[in-house]
Each structure stands twice: as structure tokens, then as C-alpha cells.
């Protein structure tokens, strides 16, 4: 405040300079003001999840102030975490996501390596094809996939529909194209001299990949892993279509189908379940935010 007053008292050129910095102070204040408004908009649902999850059913139906917890209780958490059904959903989601991450990496790292470094017949077309595949949404493929899986099931006698493991085959279609695409970007940014030196020293392609490319592109690898995990964790349409038995469901589908019994909504438990379901991605995000954001922006800025 005082500096502004001094600036005003100074010669004319300084006044101009002072007005610029005053503009900046005001810009900052307005920025904070609007950011608070937007933060309220963005954070209301998760905060409301938390508030409701701490309420008992009696308090929810009492229609008191919904934004405040008068008698906080952890009973919803205790009930859900001791229910075998909910733990089963959690387990299914975890095991599927972890396997999908491993499968994705095993497919997309070698492919990205080949596409980034080995110019072979059709490599440019394949890279473009990978990117186009990434743009095909799940809602276009769920009906034919449902029939295809049914057909394979009839042909081989292996039960695929209504089994959690079928999702392990399907989810890579969502994760592999994007992971390959961003890995191509990361691999292509590694200086050619590095792997040429390794090749001259007698390293095989495989050694170049494991000794040079993977360690150097580790940030990209982490970003891709996070992406693969969050996509498989959040996927809703495929498990909704391909699995129906309660013991085969994953978290998002399990919560929406089993906790809503007929027309009775047990909101305390639904919100607790949703919050617990949102927890793993949120925790990963909290600890690895920079990698998360790198993965998010890499899709458009790399390549």
C-alpha cells in the first residue's frame, strides 16, 4: 500500500510503472477471488461425499442441515470394510487394475521402442493407427465385444462372460494405445547417439531397451503406469456389460448396483463406498501429481 503511495508521488514515468504493478496486485486479488469460487464448485461433490459418509442413516433422514455433521460416526466405514461383498469388489478392482498395468507395459514398451527407433515397413502407419485406436471410445465397442466374447465362449467352452478375468483382456484396448503413444514420444526424445553408442559397444536391441531406454524414459513410464491404472480402476461400461454376478463385480459397478436396493438408497454407505473407491486414484495423484499431469499433457504435446 505504502509503495503505491510513494510511486504516485514520484515523477510521471514512475507513475506509469507504479500503475502497472498496482494492476498486477489487483489481478492477483481477483484471481484469488475467482479461484476460490471455482474451487468451491470443483470440490463440493467430494467434500459432500465425505460429509455424508460420516453421518448415520438417522441423521441423513432427519433432514437437518446437509452441509454439517452433527453426530460424526465411522459406522458406515466399519460396516463396508467388514462386508465381504465390498471387500470382494475392492479385491476384484485391485487385481484387475494391477494385471492390466503389467500387461499394458509388456505390450506397449516393446512396441513403442520399435516404433520410435526402428524404421520398418509400415511403422509410420502403425503409429498413426495406434493413435486412432486411442480415439475409439468404449461405447462404440461394447455391443460387438459382448457378442464376440459370447462367440469365443461357445467356440472354446471357456466361460468368459460374467467372469472378472475377461476384463483383463478387454481393458488393454483402452490403455495400450495411449501408453504406446506417449512412450513413443518419450523414446523419440532420447538422443540417438545414446543407443548408437550402445549398439556399437555390442549391445543387443533388448539390452539397449532395458539398459538405456527404460531407465532414461522412466518418468514417461511412470506417467503411463498411472494412466493405465486409473483408467482400469475407473472403467464402468465394460464391467457393467460383461459381469453380472455379485462376486465378479468391480467397485464402480458394485457400488451402483448392490448398494442401491430397489428404490431404497442407503446414501451414507453409497457415499462411503464411492469415497473408498475414489481413494486409490486420489492417493496416487496426491503423491505423484507431477507424473500424473505429465501423462495428461503428453498426449497432445508429444509426438
Amino acid at each position: 500500500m505504502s509503495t503505491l503511495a510513494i510511486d504516485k508521488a514520484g515523477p510521471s514515468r514512475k507513475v506509469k510503472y507504479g500503475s502497472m504493478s498496482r494492476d498486477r496486485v489487483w489481478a492477483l486479488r481477483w484471481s484469488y477471488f475467482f479461484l476460490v469460487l471455482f474451487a468451491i464448485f470443483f470440490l463440493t461433490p467430494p467434500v459432500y461425499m465425505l460429509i455424508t459418509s460420516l453421518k448415520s442413516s438417522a441423521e441423513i433422514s432427519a433432514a437437518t442441515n446437509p452441509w454439517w455433521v452433527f453426530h460424526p460416526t465411522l459406522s458406515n466405514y466399519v460396516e463396508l470394510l467388514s462386508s465381504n461383498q465390498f471387500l470382494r469388489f475392492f479385491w476384484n478392482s485391485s487385481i484387475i487394475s494391477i494385471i492390466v498395468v503389467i500387461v499394458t507395459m509388456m505390450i506397449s514398451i516393446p512396441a513403442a521402442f520399435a516404433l520410435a527407433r526402428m524404421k520398418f515397413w509400415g511403422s509410420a502407419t502403425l503409429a498413426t493407427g495406434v493413435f486412432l485406436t486411442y480415439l475409439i471410445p468404449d461405447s462404440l465397442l461394447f455391443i460387438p465385444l459382448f457378442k464376440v466374447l459370447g462367440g469365443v465362449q461357445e467356440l472354446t467352452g471357456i466361460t468368459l462372460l460374467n467372469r472378472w478375468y475377461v476384463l483383463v483382456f478387454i481393458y488393454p484396448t483402452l490403455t495400450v494405445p495411449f501408453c504406446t503413444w506417449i512412450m513413443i514420444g518419450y523414446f523419440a526424445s532420447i538422443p540417438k547417439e545414446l543407443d548408437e553408442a550402445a549398439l556399437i559397444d555390442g549391445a543387443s536391441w533388448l539390452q539397449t531397451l532395458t539398459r538405456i531406454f527404460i531407465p532414461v524414459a522412466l518418468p514417461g513410464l511412470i506417467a503411463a503406469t498411472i494412466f493405465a491404472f486409473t483408467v482400469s480402476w475407473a472403467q464402468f461400461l465394460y464391467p457393467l456389460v460383461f459381469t453380472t454376478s455379485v462376486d465378479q463385480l468391480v467397485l464402480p459397478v458394485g457400488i451402483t448396483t448392490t448398494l442401491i436396493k430397489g428404490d431404497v438408497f442407503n446414501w451414507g454407505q453409497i457415499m462411503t463406498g464411492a469415497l473408498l473407491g475414489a481413494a486409490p486414484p486420489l492417493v496416487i495423484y496426491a503423491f505423484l501429481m507431477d507424473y500424473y499431469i505429465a501423462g495428461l499433457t503428453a498426449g497432445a504435446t508429444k509426438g
Partner: protein
Amino acid sequence: MADVVVEQGRVARARGARKGSSLRNALGRKSTVAFFLTLPLILLIALLVLYPAFYSVYLATLNKAMTKFVGLSNFTFLFKRETFWMVVRQSCIFAITAVVFKALIGFIVAHFVHNIPGKKQRKWRGMLLVPWVIPPAMSTLAWLWLFDPSYSAFNYTLSFFGVGPIPWLGDTFWARFSVILVNVWYGAPFFLIMYLAALKSVPDQLYEAAEIDGANWWQKIWHITLPMMRNIIAITTLFSLIVTFANFDIVRILTSGGPLDTTHLFATWAFQVGIQSSDIPLGACVSLFMVPILAVAAIFILRDVNKRGNEA
């Protein structure tokens, strides 16, 4: 030892360059290796993406029991149904409105975050990206609870301002409004992050030069920020258009297409027709109508991404 190896490599390379035969040999080996490295990717895309995609065209030409070929009669049947045209209209309204608001909010908030200095900026950015991190199925449940007809926390708050209870999901207009609102809430942080990254890449000197020339804030945005960010804006918008147009989770959980099918999108209607009413050919047919718009958006994205690649 090492010297010898290097020497050998150099000799081999020199000879390869001269004759071309060992080079061709190496290339032959290289392409074999490359083929095996990309084989899993090719198989995955061919079997689980391309094959189903073409299979769905075939499915769309069968009758409900999938026993005989009926040509285009599924398509002509859809054209005669009023619900179909409502779905087309609603999908377009939903996608365009949601993408426009996501882009606008993302652009505005990105500027505010960009104004915040240093460490605090990280904190704000982290906080504002939370909607994008929560799985949409989970956060939509929270919205469903916020919109609850008898216990709506929004209506409770609005009642203090004398605004009557709003039938968030019960009335056609408000249900359409609500699904768009939730989609904007979920998608705006993505735009925010993309635009923030783009803003950071605009050199400060440009703004300083403009400021000295007496440009106001609007001129700075119009003549510096927008041209510099054009590519990112185009890619992000087109990408979001695809994802929003093909959206399933939000509408499925909030309204299941109701009231009276007025909030159905292609994806949710295809699910209802194809899976719930088990008319798989008709469902496949419905979802195929997404293809033209997706294809146009994909072509433009590809053009922009390639352009970007060439610039770099």
C-alpha cells in the same frame, strides 16, 4: 577389450556403408525384431478393436434374433422412431454445450492459476484437478445425492435465497441441464491443465513487448495468447468432443436416460436397446451413428497432431 569391440563396430559400419550388403542384412534383422516387438500390439488392436468394430457393422444388418440378414432395415426402422431423433439432438446439444463450457471455464481458470506465483500455484492446480482424478462413476454418485429429490443439498441451500425446490433430475430441462453441469464439472479440469501447460510455453517477452506498445488485456489475449495456443486448443477441444459425445457413465448413473428418454445419448440408448432389451443388432446400429462425428473429429485431431509434430 573395449577398444577392440569399438574398432569392430566401426569397421563393420564402414564396410556396411561401402557395400550395403551387411547393412541390408542388419536391416533385415532389425525389421524382424521390430515385427516381434510390435506383434502383441498389432494382435490386440486387430482382434479386440478392429474386428469388433467391423463385426458391429455386420451385426447391425441382422434381425433381432440374429438369424437372418435384413440389410438396412434396422437403420430405416430407427429413422422412423421419434426417440432416435431425440437422441441425435440431445447428443449434439450435450456434447457441444458441455465442450464449449469446459473450454471456456478451463481457459478462464487457467489464466487465474497462471497469475498465482510459484509454490501456491502448484497447490491450486492440485486442488482444481481433483474432479478429473475421481472415477466419474463415483463422483456422479455424489452428484446424484446432491440432486436427490427430497434431500437435495442444493435445494436446501437455495431455499435460503427463496428459490423454490428445483426438480434437478425430474424435469426435462433441468435433467438436461444437470447432466451437462456434471460433465462440465468433470471435464473442465482437463482443459485447465492443458491450457495451463500451453500458457507456460508462451514467452513472457511477447507480453512485455505488447505492454510497452500499449496493448490492453483483451488485445494481449486475442493477438498473443490465442494464436500461440491455437494448436493445443484445437486438439483438446476435438479430443474432448469425442469423449463427451461418447459419454456413458454420467447419464447412465444420473438419469438412465429419463425422464421419458429425453437425456439419452447414443451410448446410453445403445446400452438400453442392445443390452437391457437384448436387441443387439439395433443397439449396434445405434452406436454406429456415433462413427461419422467421431471420424470427422479424429481426422482433424490427426491433422493437428501431425502439424505439431512437424513444427517440433
